[in-house]
């Protein structure tokens, strides 16, 4: 261990005296901190806008005046997915999924189906964010710092002098990996400290209740990724006969695992598990609502059965004899059936998404970038599962809102009466304001077991590689 420490110290001292390296690191750190600052400004503006819009929509809902509950159900309201502080680090799918949804009676807003329209290959690439810098550009920086780590020693002859001291190749390799990993930490640490400090603000709105933990986990994920890339790069340098070969090998690895495989994964997923077109998806839903699923009969037949059931249940012969407004019951039953149809179609659609995502997850075993990209989005709360969670909770809220309106109509108005009956703000107030709270980091990670396993295996593989070398050829 003493030798590893000595090697690492020497490497750090050697690098510390390279002005160009420090200039490069300074530029990268400066850009990332600047990105953090500007990202935070954007986050605050967006959060302010979302808060204002949410307040405005809530006020509009409460102050909509007296009206029939069904009209209120169509008047509807907007809910907004609050930005999380971590989304400034990794936008993930937020840009493509949107962050607001309009809630009204009969059907979920288009927002829910947006993935059908927009799930092309591009959505899996993300946009230029601090996360992308760490996922793709930091490895590139590591490659440029490390590709000569052994080849230069071999070319200048210092490697012979090192080995002649009785130092094992493993110790030299480990020492270099430790030193270069520490240099990488110089880039990572200030950024994540800044993010952690800023994340304190998140406790105010509690969208993510464990934002501090998520920031620490993000740091851990990127630290492991850094170690994997550093270890691999130094190992390639050890095994390469020249600096040129090492650089070519590493750039090829970077290109294949960081660009080609993610792109291929998206295209491969779409080919293997094609999604229905927006038109076909909608038509399927409308058809099943109109004609019924699994032999349930058409809408008219279902309504006729409902009417008969109610008349029989209350022992009356006409709807106006019922102790409640059958129109409210009919509307709610229609809602329930529509919900059932939507759920069935959505389940099929989401199963397809999951199949596509699984391909990406499996490719994490050959491309560490895939593992880190997915885990990063998960921790930032901007991944597909977080989006699903948000849409599911808004849909639950919408269904409760509509159910409340229909129940009020059924219980407080009479059959045949529509415009005559008006509910007031007491009813509007009974609908609590929508407030989104994301699931925990632990639950978020549970969706990415394959990625966690892949990253762990990558780390173990690098550690294993570091224990293999016993002798260097062509000294």
């Amino acid at each position, binding site marked *: 261990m003493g030798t590893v420490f000595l090697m690492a110290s020497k490497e750090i001292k050697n690098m510390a005296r390279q002005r160009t390296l420090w200039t490069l690191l300074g530029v990268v750190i400066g850009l990332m901190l600047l990105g953090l600052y500007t990202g935070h400004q954007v986050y605050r503006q967006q959060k302010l806008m979302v808060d204002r819009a949410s307040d405005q929509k809530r006020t509009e809902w409460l102050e909509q005046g007296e009206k029939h509950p069904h009209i209120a159900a169509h008047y509807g309201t907007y809910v907004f997915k609050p930005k999380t502080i971590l989304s400034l680090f990794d936008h993930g799918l937020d840009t493509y999924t949107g962050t607001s949804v309009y809630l009204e009676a009969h059907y979920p807003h288009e927002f829910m189906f947006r993935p059908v329209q927009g799930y092309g290959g591009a959505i899996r690439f993300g946009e230029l964010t601090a996360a992308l810098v760490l996922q793709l550009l930091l490895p590139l920086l590591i490659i440029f710092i490390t590709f000569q780590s052994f080849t230069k020693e071999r070319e200048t002859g210092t490697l012979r002098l090192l*080995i002649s*001291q009785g130092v094992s190749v493993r110790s030299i390799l480990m020492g270099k990996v430790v030193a270069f990993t520490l240099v990488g930490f110089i880039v990572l640490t200030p950024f994540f400290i800044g993010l952690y400090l800023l994340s304190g603000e998140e406790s105010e709105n509690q969208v993510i209740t464990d934002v501090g933990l998520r920031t620490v986990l993000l740091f851990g994920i990127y630290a492991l990724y850094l170690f994997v890339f550093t270890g691999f790069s130094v190992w390639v340098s050890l095994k390469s006969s020249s600096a040129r070969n090492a650089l070519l090998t590493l750039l090829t690895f970077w290109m294949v695992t960081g660009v080609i495989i993610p792109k291929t994964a998206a295209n491969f997923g779409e080919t293997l598990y094609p999604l229905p077109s927006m038109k076909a998806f909608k038509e399927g839903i409308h058809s099943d609502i109109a004609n019924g699923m699994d032999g349930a009969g058409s809408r008219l037949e279902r309504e006729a059965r409902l009417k008969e059931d109610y008349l029989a249940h209350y022992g009356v012969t006409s709807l106006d004899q019922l102790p409640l407004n059958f129109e409210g019951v009919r509307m709610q039953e229609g809602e329930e059936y529509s919900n059932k149809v939507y759920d069935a179609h959505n389940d099929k659609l989401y199963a397809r998404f999951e199949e596509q995502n699984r391909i990406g997850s499996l490719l994490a075993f050959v491309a560490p970038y895939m593992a880190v990209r997915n885990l990063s989005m998960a921790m930032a709360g901007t991944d597909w599962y977080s989006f699903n969670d948000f849409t599911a909770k808004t849909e639950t809220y919408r269904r409760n809102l509509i159910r409340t309106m229909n129940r009020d109509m059924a219980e407080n108005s009479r059959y045949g009466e529509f415009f005559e009956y008006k509910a007031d703000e007491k009813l509007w107030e009974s609908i609590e304001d929508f407030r989104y709270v994301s699931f925990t980091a632990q639950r978020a990670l549970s969706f990415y077991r394959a990625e966690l396993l892949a990253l762990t295996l990558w780390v173990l593989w690098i550690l294993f590689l570091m224990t293999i070398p016993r002798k260097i050829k062509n000294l």
Partner: protein
Amino acid sequence: MLEAIDLTKKYGGFTALDSLNLTVDEGDIFCLLGANGAGKSTTINLFLNFIEPTSGRALINGLDVTEHARKTKQWLSYIPENLQLYKNLTGLENLEFFCGLGGVGQDRDALESLLLKSGLQKDFVHQRVDRYSKGMRQKVGIALARAKGAKVLLLDEPTSGLDPKASNEFSELLLEMKDQKVATLMATHDLFRAKDTGTHIGIMKEGTLLETMETSEISFNDLESKYLRHMHA
């Protein structure tokens, strides 16, 4: 201290070293003379365990260098033709680092004094090595051997490219090491330096040790004649 027993190295059908047998005792400076490709550097590399023998054994202090690689390296110090150090570190820092790797715990003052004793000018001790001449780097190599208390010195063309003054200084340092009972095996083209510094000379050609002699028993002219005769044979 140093012993080669039927030491052979082949690369496919090419024999780089053929059944070498030699012994270098404490206080001996054994110079291997020969043209390029004679097997001198192969011999040094085999003792350093940089390459493994096809057959035969290379022993340092009685231990086989392939079986006891780490132990035998603790006893030796190696100075190649063009000793390269870490250019961003000073001579003293390089010495500290390599001593540390060799498990030698010497304080800075002692190491600085060793550098000075090895002929490095005081002004250069704390200067980065990228400002050093080749001769100055060789002196750091000698200081390292001294700091390690090396029992064996393996030198591969150490004076090649040095000016006469630097070569003389280097020879003097070798003679000091000789007095400290260090066994030295030096590969060289330099007949004059071999005769002047060595205790024994071996003439090699095409992987074979053709003849060995003690320098005290041969004049420079006779050595030159023998060498040329072997080379032209």
